């Protein structure tokens, strides 16, 4: 059974036809948001994390029809005027990307964290990344990159 839904993906409203039983993950990938990775499909790995109404969630754990009318943000919307988002740049600078499969999900978790806790401790960052599995790194560089982003953004606000 198909149904039309409306999602605002990275600020652009789209009318999308979906199967009733499809997850948000499936719909986002069909819409070209390939940063949203299908890892475990059971809510364990976090590689499909997106912002739903500004909050980081596993897109595999949300029915697309239940997201009808809501804002969804993915990594595709982070770049501004050809420049990477500060957290993306910090990930590159810290060498936090190896195979890269987990990176989009980690970015979304990190961005959610800084949106409500702009000055997190290292432990708070680790807690926030609790649902994002990375099998290449030891998480150290991702945590560093988020710390750097927080400091950078604090500096910008102070200036």
């Amino acid at each position, binding site marked *: 059974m198909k149904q039309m839904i409306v999602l605002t993906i990275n600020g652009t409203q789209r009318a999308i036809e979906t199967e009733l039983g*499809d997850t948000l993950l499936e719909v986002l990938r069909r819409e070209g948001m390939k940063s949203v990775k299908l890892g475990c499909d059971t809510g364990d790995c976090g590689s499909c994390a997106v912002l739903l109404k500004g909050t980081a969630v596993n897109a595999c754990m*949300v029915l697309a029809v239940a997201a009808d009318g809501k804002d969804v943000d993915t990594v595709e919307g982070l770049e501004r005027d050809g420049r990477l988002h500060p957290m993306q740049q910090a990930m590159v600078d810290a060498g936090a990307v190896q195979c890269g499969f987990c990176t989009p999900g980690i970015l979304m978790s990190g961005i959610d964290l800084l949106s409500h806790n702009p000055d997190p401790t290292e432990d708070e960052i680790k807690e926030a990344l609790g649902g994002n599995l990375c099998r290449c790194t030891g998480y150290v560089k991702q945590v560093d990159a988020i710390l750097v982003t927080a400091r950078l953004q604090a500096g910008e606000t102070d200036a």
Partner: protein
Amino acid sequence: MALTHLQSYARPIDLDSAVELLRGGDRGTRLMAAGTDLILSGSGEITGLVDLGGLDLTYIEERDGAVAIGAMTTLTELLEHPAAAAYLDGVVSEMLRRVGSPLLRNLATVGGNLVRKQPWSDVIPLFRALGASITLFDGDERSGPIDDLYAEAAHLTGTILTEVVLPPQPAGTAASFWKFTRSAVDIATLNCAALVQAEGDRCIRARIFVGATPRLAVAVPSAEAALVGTDLSATTIAAAARAAADEVSTGDDLRATAAYRTRLVSVGITRCLEQAKRRLEGVTS
């Protein structure tokens, strides 16, 4: 596709319509809160969904020492609310921090967790130990103890859980939660929750629950009886732990054997009660 047999989906905006849709649907029609557990079940039996996301059931209100929680409140919203941190030394936040990951807690709801009756639920044993009450709606609204949800005779077809209330606790009450997992975000291999109330040195009330046995959380009356009237000394705590290990029936699954779980019951009850006692004595941590 996660739910391959889904033929209808509705997101009503009032409770009466929700009940009507639920009753009017076919046998495969289910209520959905966030849907995390429904999607995981991937059940081909689910043919219709009534999504409770359009109802106004997301709130946390402090009412004279009680904390009222709308059923659609997410675990994160409750975890981060000052009312949860203030209630009995933050035992609710302590438990919620151990549930899944932030990405799941941002979706999963308090009501969904209670009504799905998963054996590994961490919310169920603690909320039952705290003596929470619930409000149900089936056209009429009625309130009762949370234990009603888990009674064998519970008849809840066509009924919506709308609210759960953590009651005001008398002075001299402390609670604690303990969970054993194979990894930080795994479901419980076993969990325990305890509430004790003391008058002077004497324990006058105890509520103890053990979950993930691997069956649904159960009360442990023998351990409760071992505590009431005592001074909660190390000896009585050990006696309560022994009683619990004797009483609670455990089973095997991929996470642990029954024998291992029985050992966990003893360890978990001991640690829960030691923590509750420290809290009674005003020792934080």
